């Protein structure tokens, strides 16, 4: 846990200058409201990215005369998850905490409603995508605010040269830098053909089918592309449907062209596969590209981040937002909300995105055209399409639209990838569907 303290002696509480600052802060209305604030942020993968957040908090703290302590908590080894669980049980801890994808809904009863924060932010920065709303809003109550830091799209990142050489696809022409995609031909049939060609050429696609997040997210997007739901929004188990059968059949064909060991891949495997020069395509945010830029620049020069192939029911890409939430046992809720509003301003979001080399994506629609994505290189424009600037694809999350408590279990227990592997390894379709139905039945308990 990285810790930083921003201390400021509140020696001029009664002076005109301090009063002016307090009045200017929307939620810090009196000297009593200032006080102390404890914040737990996600510890960013990208070196140096925490510094932008730290500087922004310091700026806010000085302006509002609040003593802030910041912890950057890593998600490695589930430390952030464990911290959240511990704070929820102890009813004590940080005032503001970073909540990963499913956690706002999990802790809905313990979070302060954020409608008074979200409504002005949406007015100012534009609407949020459906996935953010699904994950962050329950029964009309905003549970937390989508954070810039850590939010990501896990779209395809491809080798320009290898796609051209093996499959005859010019991905830069399909997804030109600075312009809308011309990707009508980028559909699941052509994706399969390209996967086959690249496998035959010795540089297969690297799509994991393990139980970790990257694998589950990719499978989730392809299930959405077929309209394949396991549990519907009402909570009914609907896994035995034609769309699920279609996506399993598709995956079975696709798996023949993927490396044999994909069922055991974790979230690092796809990155290593691409950076080593073996793979043509992976599904990942630009962290793999950033590592290649540092460790294998000749490979980074050939990488291009772009959109998902379109399926029978549309073009879907996995979006994983982080959220900033405030516990209901927080002692300084007004200051906590004030800080979150400050961090959600366009200028703050841009600073965070720049510091993360374009990795972080704000969830608001007006904040997806920062310069960093157009300018990052090599090659120039490689990240232009990463934040989905032309709304070319629907941002989604695996297991949606099932009720959160069921969907979270589908996601964490990787039911979709397990179904794919079972069926692709020769299990009968009905047996796979029966197995899934039984698991889903278990997730529905209260």
């Amino acid at each position, binding site marked *: 846990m990285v810790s930083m303290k921003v201390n400021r002696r509140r020696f001029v509480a009664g002076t005109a200058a301090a009063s002016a600052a307090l009045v200017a802060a929307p939620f810090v209305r009196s000297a009593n409201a200032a006080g102390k604030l404890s914040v737990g942020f996600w510890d960013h993968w990208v070196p140096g990215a925490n510094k932008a957040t730290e500087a922004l908090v310091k700026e806010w703290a000085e302006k509002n005369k609040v003593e802030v302590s910041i912890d950057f908590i890593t998600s490695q080894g589930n430390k952030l*998850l464990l911290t959240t669980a511990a704070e929820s049980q102890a009813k004590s801890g940080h005032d503001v905490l970073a909540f990963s994808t499913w956690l706002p809904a999990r802790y809905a009863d313990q979070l302060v409603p954020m409608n008074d924060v979200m409504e002005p932010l949406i007015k100012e920065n534009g609407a949020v995508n459906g996935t953010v709303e699904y994950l962050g809003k329950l029964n009309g109550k905003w549970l937390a605010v989508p954070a810039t830091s850590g939010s990501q799209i896990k779209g395809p990142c491809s080798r320009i040269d290898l796609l051209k050489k093996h499959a005859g696809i010019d991905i830069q022409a399909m997804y030109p830098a600075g312009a809308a995609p011309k990707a009508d031909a980028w559909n699941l049939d052509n994706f399969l053909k390209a996967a086959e060609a690249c496998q035959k050429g010795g540089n297969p696609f690297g799509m994991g089918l393990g139980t*970790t997040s990257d694998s589950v997210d990719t499978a989730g997007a392809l299930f959405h592309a077929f309209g394949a739901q396991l549990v519907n929004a009402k909570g009914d188990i609907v896994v035995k449907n034609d769309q699920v059968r279609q996506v399993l059949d598709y995956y079975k064909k696709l798996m023949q062209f993927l490396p044999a060991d994909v069922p055991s*891949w974790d979230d690092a495997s796809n990155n*290593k596969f691409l950076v080593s020069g073996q793979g043509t395509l992976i599904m990942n945010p630009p962290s793999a590209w950033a590592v290649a830029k540092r460790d294998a620049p000749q490979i980074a020069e050939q990488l291009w981040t772009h959109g998902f192939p379109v399926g029978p029911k549309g073009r879907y890409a996995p979006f994983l937002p982080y959220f900033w939430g405030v516990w209901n046992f927080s002692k300084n809720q007004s200051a906590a909300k004030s800080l979150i509003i400050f961090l959600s301003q366009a200028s703050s979001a841009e600073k965070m995105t720049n510091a993360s080399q374009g990795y972080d994506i704000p969830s608001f629609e007006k904040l997806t055209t920062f310069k960093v994505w157009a300018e990052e290189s090599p090659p120039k424009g490689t990240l232009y399409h990463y934040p989905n600037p032309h709304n070319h694809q629907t941002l989604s999350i695996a297991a949606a639209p099932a009720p959160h408590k069921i969907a*979270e279990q589908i996601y964490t227990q990787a039911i979709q990838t*397990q179904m794919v592997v079972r069926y692709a390894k020769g299990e009968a379709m009905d047996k796979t569907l029966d197995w899934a139905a*039984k698991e889903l039945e278990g997730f529905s308990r209260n």
Partner: protein
Amino acid sequence: MADIAARNPAGHPSQQRSSLHKLMQRKSTIAFLMALPLILLITILVAYPAGYAVYLATLNKGMTRFVGFGNFEFLFGRDTFWLVVYQSCLFAITAVIFKAIIGFVVAHFVHNIPAKGQRKWRGMLLVPWVIPPAMSTLAWLWLFDPSYSALNWLLAIFGIEGIPWTGEAGWARFSVILVNVWIGSPFFMIMYLAALKSVPEQLYEAASIDGATWWQRIWYVTLPMMRNIIAITALFSLIVTFANFDIVRVLTAGGPLNSTHIFGTWAFRVGIEGGDIPLGAAVSLFMVPILAVAATFILRDITKRGSEV
């Protein structure tokens, strides 16, 4: 009571001091006071969490109402749970058997090394046991890496096709057991070595005079003299192996297709990652009856032999 009061007039300070002094002089009191810090530590770090886990296991998913044994009943109806029970037993029993055999054989080798060089060998052989398992398992993870396995690279030199160490259920089970055996064998070795050193040399001499073969010496002298150590070591290792977490978590995270999950890793998956803490607590508590039965049988055997002696 009146008699006691008469012989022990309360309120006399010098007598009170003297009885307190006597109490403090008792060996049992001193022993209790010396053990008190450990008792407190165990109460705080073991008894309280265990009690809390029992409490959690009796709550519903939302932790809002008491459901008694509802979570356990629910588990009994899940295929994945029975897969985890099977895998946990397979993992623990197989690993303990191999650790015991390897520990026994290596202890004999080390015992027969001349005393001068024995210390170095003992030290080297203990290395796998003293490295934190989370670290050494990471090294194994790289050896088993799906795409860049060093072991497969070695096999390729001899023209043997790569093995999906963590990609196929059978091989993944083999891999987690192998790593557990690698880490745990030195513990058995050092315990057995200590037991071997305590076997009186005269017994072997007498056996030799009687014309006992190598195997007969092992069977009729060494093993009976080591039985209690073997039983206690096996019990201790069984408990630790059943409760293992780090090896499976780091190496396979329970995959592929849940085929390597054991109680600890599945409890974590269900309880912490999946947000169903009561069910996770119920999974982890399921180890208790299994281990209690094993401990009862093993300890009863030891007590029986102790009374025979």
